[in-house]
């Protein structure tokens, strides 16, 4: 045999062995593999610290924390491929909103038998809306972890500069109506000589001003349980796009988009924000924004109130997200995963997690505990306690509905579609995917 041939044979042997040995991370028997979508540096460090504490409490148990970065919340590629490939984790810290989608696909194990085995009252400590969000066909698929909620943040300096008394925004005075908000926003907005925006009061598709946020405000209903259909004839649902269409025309979408891309690019580095720099006067943002302001713009004079409402005198309304601890199908150590999930989402686990992170707990008892809820978060904790906040509709097609609704927003903003066309698009896209899961029972705990 020639040297070349031997070299080739050697290379092949090396190839196969090196590749086989060099990759698949080996599993230990008592190991709990945790995939998390909470991948900020601080969050990973804190999760690791808590896992270490869990290991210390449970001799012989080891844990492995794997950060999973995804393009969007609904993108389940990593979980789908891993579970299919038999290399899925024991626990998946998923966006709670996606539990329904994952559960309906068969990607997750029902936790209901385990919940029942724990005895009555096991889930009583969790906020009802968070449990509902993780429930599919009457069975719980995830233990709720933290949550957040949305408020209207305002920069008092910018308001004063525009001649608006910040006191009108104070939550004491109840929420603003959409009309009031627009009026104030117009007062703030400044245009340069060539007509480009230099400062804007409020951009109705900025940050957390999602179609769903406006839908809550307009009282939209998305799903008709009786007929198991997407309720595209609902006036509130359609109203989202009518609002966007009219508002975008008023602001001039192209001009606003250029302003946003310049001063508020999605990819802006952490620690910068058009809100800090006074480029945008008001934003609907989630509660974790408050500690961020304190961190990156400690001198800023700001306030936060309820998102706007449709009519004077309406109750405040907002919505909340957050993750849940789930156990994927085929988990090798599901029992270990369950113990860990109980520990992390239980009262003590959430106390430690929420007091070190900028999130709100879903354990109701912690919401009025000043050691957990800092000054920044009090307003938001009260929103949750008062029951003003709910979740997005937990449907098997929830994340596709969410994404289709967001795409519909782009279509309307760009002038490519009318609200009517968006509603048709949503129906044509979502209904066929929903049909295989009908009938669907939504759970509403008190």
């Amino acid at each position, binding site marked *: 045999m020639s040297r*070349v041939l031997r070299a080739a044979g050697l290379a092949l042997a090396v190839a196969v062995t090196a590749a086989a040995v060099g990759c*698949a991370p080996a599993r230990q028997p008592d190991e709990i593999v945790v995939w998390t979508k909470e991948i900020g540096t601080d969050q990973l460090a804190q999760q690791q610290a808590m896992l270490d504490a869990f290991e210390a409490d449970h001799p012989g148990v080891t844990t492995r924390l794997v950060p*999973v970065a995804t393009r969007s919340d609904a993108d389940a590629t990593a979980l789908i*491929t891993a579970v*299919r490939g038999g290399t899925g984790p024991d626990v998946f810290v998923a966006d709670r909103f996606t539990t329904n989608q994952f559960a309906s696909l068969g990607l997750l194990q029902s936790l209901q038998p385990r919940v029942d085995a724990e005895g009555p009252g096991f889930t009583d400590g969790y906020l009802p809306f968070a449990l509902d969000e993780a429930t599919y066909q009457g069975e719980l698929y995830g233990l709720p972890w933290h949550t957040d909620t949305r408020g209207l943040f305002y920069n008092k300096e910018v308001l004063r500069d525009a001649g608006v008394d910040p006191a009108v925004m104070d939550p004491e005075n109840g929420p603003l109506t959409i009309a009031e908000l627009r009026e104030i926003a117009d007062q703030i907005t400044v245009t340069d000589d060539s007509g480009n925006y230099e400062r804007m009061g409020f951009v109705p598709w900025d940050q957390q001003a999602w179609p769903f946020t406006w839908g809550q405000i307009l009282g939209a209903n998305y799903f008709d349980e009786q007929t198991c259909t997407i309720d595209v004839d609902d006036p509130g649902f359609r109203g989202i796009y009518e609002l966007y269409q009219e508002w975008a025309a008023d602001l001039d979408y192209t001009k606003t988009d250029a302003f946003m891309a310049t001063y508020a690019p999605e990819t802006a580095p952490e620690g910068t924000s058009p809100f800090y720099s006074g480029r945008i006067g008001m934003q609907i943002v989630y509660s974790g924004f408050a500690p961020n302001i304190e961190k990156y713009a400690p001198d800023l004079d700001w306030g936060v109130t309820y998102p706007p409402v449709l009519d004077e005198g309406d109750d405040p309304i907002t919505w909340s997200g957050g993750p849940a601890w789930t156990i994927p199908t085929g988990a090798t150590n599901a029992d270990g995963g369950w113990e860990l999930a109980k520990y992390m989402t239980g009262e003590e686990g959430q106390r430690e997690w929420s007091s070190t992170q900028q999130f709100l707990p879903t354990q109701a008892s912690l919401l009025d505990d000043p050691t957990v809820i800092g000054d920044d978060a009090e307003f938001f904790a009260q929103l949750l306690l008062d029951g003003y906040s709910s979740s997005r509709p937990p449907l098997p097609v929830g994340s596709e509905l969410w994404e289709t609704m967001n795409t519909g927003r782009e279509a309307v903003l760009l002038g490519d579609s009318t609200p009517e066309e968006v509603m048709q698009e949503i129906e044509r896209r979502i209904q066929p995917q929903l049909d295989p899961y009908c009938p669907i029972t939504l759970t509403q705990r008190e």
Partner: protein
Amino acid sequence: MSTAATAPGRRVSLKTQNRVRRTTTGIIARAILIAVSLLFLVPLYWMVITAMKTDEELADFPPSLLPQSWNWSIFGEAVNAFPFWLQFGNSLLVTVLGTVLAVLSSYVVAYGFACIDWPGRDKVFYLVLATIFIPFPVAIIPLFDLFAWLGWVNTLLPLIVPNALGSAFYIFLLRQFLLQASVEAMDAARVDGASEWRICWQVVFPTARGALIAVAIFAAVASWNDFLGPLIYLQDPSVQTLAIGLQSFSTETDTSFNQLMAASTLTVLPMVVLFIFFQRYFVKGLNVGGFR
């Protein structure tokens, strides 16, 4: 050739005319060449420049064309912000093994199509050509299920092993080259009683160096640049290649653009070095082997 009969007098004046025309077109051509070359390099230039800017300078508007100070430490920061070297190693492993397997297997198959005269050979070769044009993604779901069944998900094997089955495009390039291999040398070896396998490696292989290197570079670039494969097969950061590492890094909230560009620069660099080293083989290998 009919043109040989042109009158001598006319040829002289033609030559002078041509010289004049050549100098002017030469200058214009050079200007265009330089402009187009620069245009092609601008995005790469912007990558390096953006990498070297500080966070403060990145926030400046309008952006500066040259960084105020060259922030070399950014490369260190980027490398430490995610498991860069580990994932670099994974990319390297996939690329080296994948390339070796692709070149060797494609060579053997090409030899079978070029140097052995068997009935039906050219008909089968039509089929090889046809597969060049099959959109690969058609196969992603079936192949995923196959590799999942084999337990290869979350390992580098799905990215490496298929290379051992030859690649239609490389087979085509190498076959074209091997068709010109010396038939005499092969026949002489056959008369001496050498096995076909031995002729393949000892007589023909050493003469195919240029084409093999060209194919190797193609294969290396393809492996290094693969995105969809790693996206589907690799979930654990410790087995991911740079393609996915960079993508995850970019979706993390606290990632800054200069770090992302620094990491991209380091990802691009190995391919650039490879090309500069082997540039002469590259074009030559294609010339000899390729599209005659």
